[in-house]
């Protein structure tokens, strides 16, 4: 398993915003969106499971993100698709705060998830 990567400092991502880590940087087959909402951090594969759209550019509220293109909603915790037109989940990635720094564990499912 690859080492976690530092995404930034706590406070870099504003509430209900996301930072997108390019696929190259993450060493992953998709960009990864790191979300900050209601005091918590989450990370999902950035590409919506419905069509080619960036979830990191979406509407973030509570523990949900809404795709900005066709309005499919996903759980930030589990990556599950919460409504049509999406029917498939997106992968989660674990995020940890250590010493006020945001660390992303690429490919490691968020706590409690199976991937």
């Amino acid at each position: 398993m690859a080492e976690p990567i530092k995404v930034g400092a706590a406070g870099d991502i504003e509430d209900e915003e996301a930072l997108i880590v390019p696929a190259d940087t993450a060493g992953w087959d998709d960009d990864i969106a790191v979300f900050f909402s209601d005091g918590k951090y989450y990370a999902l594969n950035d590409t919506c499971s419905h069509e080619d759209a960036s979830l990191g550019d979406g509407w973030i509220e509570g523990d949900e993100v809404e795709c900005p293109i066709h309005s499919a909603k996903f759980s930030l915790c589990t990556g599950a698709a919460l409504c049509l037109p999406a029917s498939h989940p997106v992968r989660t990635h674990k995020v940890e705060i250590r010493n006020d720094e945001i660390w992303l564990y690429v490919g490691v499912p968020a706590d409690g998830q199976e991937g």
Partner: protein
Amino acid sequence: MHAQPHDKGVSVTDINDLVDLDKGSLKGHMFTDEDIYQQELDKVWRRAWCFLAHDSMIPKKGDFLQNFIGEDPVLIVRQKDGSVKAFLNQCRHRGMRICRVDQGAAKAFTCSFHGWSYGLDGSLIQVPREGDAYPDDFDKANYPARPIPRLTNYKGFWFGTWDEEAPEFEEYLGSAKYYLDGYIDRWDGGMEPIAFHKWTLPNNWKFMAEQPTSDMQHSEITHVSAGQVLNKGSDAADRTLRGDNPTGRQFFSDYGHGGAWYGEKGSEVPNTGQAMQKWEAQPEIAEQIAKRLGDNREIRGHLNIWPTFMVLGNYTIRVTHPRGPGHQEIWAWTFVPKDADDATKDSIRRDVMRTFTPGGMFEGDDALNWEEMQEVLHGRIARDSGFTYQMTGAPIQWDEGPYPGGSTKHVFSDNAAINMYSNYVDMMNAENWDELKQLREKHRMGKSN
């Protein structure tokens, strides 16, 4: 020029048969005829500079407003880099309206028919099933929402035109710039809208255009009931100060703009509420005005920038959108100085609301006039008889004192209306802006060339 045949041999109504400006005569058909109306959508609304939005309406990235140019719905959107773009609110796919709300904040605009999605700038960014249902050479870049190619920000006000050959906005304003600035460029902090009203009326849009261009005189009779109750104990301007034999001036400008105000230079009677006058009388504000405009320019009465961008001294600022030859849709904002105190802002807002909004005590009687004018024009004799513009007694002056362009030393005159229709006819006749400019030179009123 005579009537031109359609492809199918059906006559096209010729505006030149309907207007005789030397006689001051307009035939009613120009306010009722569907063919004239369609020509207007092409020759006027496709060419003129039209108001789209004020900076304060779309302050943050993603903020947008839906407006119209003529009958074309458009979206005006604040971009991520702070600039503004505007485009036709029509999906390039099957013509569905892309955005169906009045205003808001967006990250993209997705058509709810097939899901074609447009960025904040109107570029096509997502087409469902592009990968497998579209050929390899399908390029989204060829199908943006049609951009409005020319946009300009004039002192916070965004105007746009579909016509790439249109002159720059300040050239379009011409001498009207001096007068428009006297309304909208007085204060360092600028202005912002704090109220909005939208309503439809059963009459031709040109009735709305003509009034703030040229018709101060109707107020004394049409609005007699409002004058009686509002002059005292209200937020409105005290119209009794205008006097029995009012002085004042009316201006008109090449591309159809016009306006007027009461009072001689130095003793003007602004069409402005008392709270505004009191706020502006403060030394630091008076100083701002004098610095920005060169003196305490007082020209506030009524004004219209052709086609229908109207400004009144009490800071109702509106446009009207044509809705067929027999209807119009008025969109009216209440503007206040950003730096004014809350009480002043509120007084301005209430004054506009009680005078020039759908429940307004002035507005209702204007609506009545226009509705009856339109109704009577159902009659054939009535259409042939038309309207007359004979109030041209006050001589035209050019560049008189501080007043640029053409004006009359009288607040009541039909000159600005005749000028407005002269520009209108020239627009209807001209093939392009170059030809229009030549026609306006030729037809400039009261000035030998």
